[in-house]
């Protein structure tokens, strides 16, 4: 199978990117400055990310919100035009098929951004489960960028030729940047203020060059995208969440719409609802928590965690290094009776038990825009 390229492939090479294969796409993992500097640049100024590998799905139809509520636990009927919502596609066992952001961009008009590795499968799933009264389309000719960091809003504001960049967190607007029509959404995957920018492939390189030419903007690869989201305590699908984890175990129970809970108790129709709502009202058997290794040795995905009695109590699902803290960090699923903040555990790395501590997430406080 041949590998896919984004519209910025040549530009990444020109910028000296180290390319890797991710979800069948050739993507930049880092640029010559390296992951740590790209990470810190994003937290201090503004990082530019090509995330065009992600799936953008258009959904049009009067019934779409009603039908999506049969696939995901959030409410979409009350999502105003221009607003977006993070949600999960669940299966009948209460597992997670994908996580996604749903944007209500106009009357009966929606855009869903789904994970790269899941997009074909999600698209087929929507085609099967959403009625023919809705038009579902995978937008293959659309690029997606992220501009993230405390100066992202300043950069965008300066370049706007149409529309307004002063939109709330989790809102979306059609604008023009340097005369190029695009959609900006105030969301991201770093814990910082910033935008995701959807633009037609034909304008993608032009827009990328304009953004990269701005003061304070530097290109950032998937390596720093991963360390940034880990510091922000955000899940990576296929690692921290998948069909074997439930929303409540994953500490994502907040995506469940309030109308399904007491005192309303509206009958939910999303897959796995009974299990997920029961877990919300009791306790799951394990939870996703933050793990702070006490030494310098990174504790990575797949590492097993043990309690003081040497019993296996958890598994690391993401682990790496935090450039902002200057120490390793990780997230893991840990059994309920060992997952309280401050619990001391050990991680088995290369046949050695190293001390770690359960901590709350995010590791670095979120700095989303607050209007």
């Amino acid at each position, binding site marked *: 199978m041949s590998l896919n390229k984004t519209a910025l492939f040549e530009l990444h090479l020109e910028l000296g990117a180290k390319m890797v294969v991710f979800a069948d796409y050739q993507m930049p993992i*880092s640029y010559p400055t*390296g*992951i*740590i500097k790209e990470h810190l640049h994003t937290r201090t100024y503004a990082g530019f990310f090509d995330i065009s590998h992600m799936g953008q799905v258009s959904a049009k139809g009067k019934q779409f919100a009603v039908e999506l509520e049969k696939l995901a636990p959030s409410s979409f009927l009350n999502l105003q035009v221009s607003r977006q919502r993070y949600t999960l596609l669940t299966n009948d066992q209460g597992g997670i098929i994908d996580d996604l952001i749903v944007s209500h961009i106009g009357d009966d008009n929606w855009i869903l951004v789904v994970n790269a590795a899941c997009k074909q499968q999600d698209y087929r799933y929507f085609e099967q489960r959403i009625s023919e009264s809705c038009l579902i389309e995978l937008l293959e000719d659309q690029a997606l960028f992220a501009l993230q960091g405390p100066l992202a809003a300043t950069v965008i504001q300066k370049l706007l030729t149409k529309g307004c960049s002063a939109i709330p967190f989790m809102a979306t607007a059609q604008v023009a940047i340097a005369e190029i029509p695009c959609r900006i959404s105030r969301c991201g995957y770093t814990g910082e203020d910033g935008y995701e920018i959807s633009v037609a492939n034909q304008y993608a390189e032009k827009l990328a060059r304009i953004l990269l030419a701005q003061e304070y903007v530097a290109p950032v690869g998937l390596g720093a995208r991963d360390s940034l989201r880990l510091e922000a305590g955000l899940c990576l699908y296929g690692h921290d969440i998948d069909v074997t984890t439930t929303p409540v175990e994953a500490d994502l129970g907040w995506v469940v719409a309030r109308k399904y809970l007491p005192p309303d108790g509206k009958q939910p129709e999303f897959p796995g609802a009974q299990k997920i709502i029961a877990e919300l009202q009791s306790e799951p058997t394990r939870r996703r928590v933050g793990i702070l290794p006490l030494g*310098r040795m990174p504790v990575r995905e797949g590492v097993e965690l043990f309690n003081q009695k040497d019993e296996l109590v958890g598994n690391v699902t993401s682990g790496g290094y935090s450039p902002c803290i200057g120490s390793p960090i990780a997230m893991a699923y840990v059994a309920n009776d060992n997952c309280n903040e401050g619990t001391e555990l050990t991680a088995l790395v290369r046949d050695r038990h190293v001390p770690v501590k359960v901590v709350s997430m995010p590791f670095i406080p979120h700095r989303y825009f607050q209007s």
Partner: protein
Amino acid sequence: MSKLPDDLKYAKSHEWTKLEDNQIVRVGITDFAQDELGDLVYIELPKVGQRVSAGKQCAVVESVKTASDLYSPVDGEVVEINEALTDEPERVNEDCYDSWLFCIKADNPSQLNQLMNSDEYEAMISD
């Protein structure tokens, strides 16, 4: 990439080695290796006095993204380690030929003849 030092021998697994007096072999990782790994955040060195065998794993270098094993180029005993790297692994990124990792007293230094010279290593990494 800077020119490879021609007084060193190179292993396929991207360690550089330097034969010094008294059968001491100094070992580090090449510029190619540090560049491929990216920012190093942790180095697990062998212990002084530890026996090591040619081609066997004896240290680990970890970057932000990944952990990578290092192999001993010769049979022998670890006689010195660069402890400064424990707190400052990034020194290897900054100058990988100055920031050696460990020294081995080789049982038989002629084992180094199995390794590549700078031209051969250069040819291997340009493939």
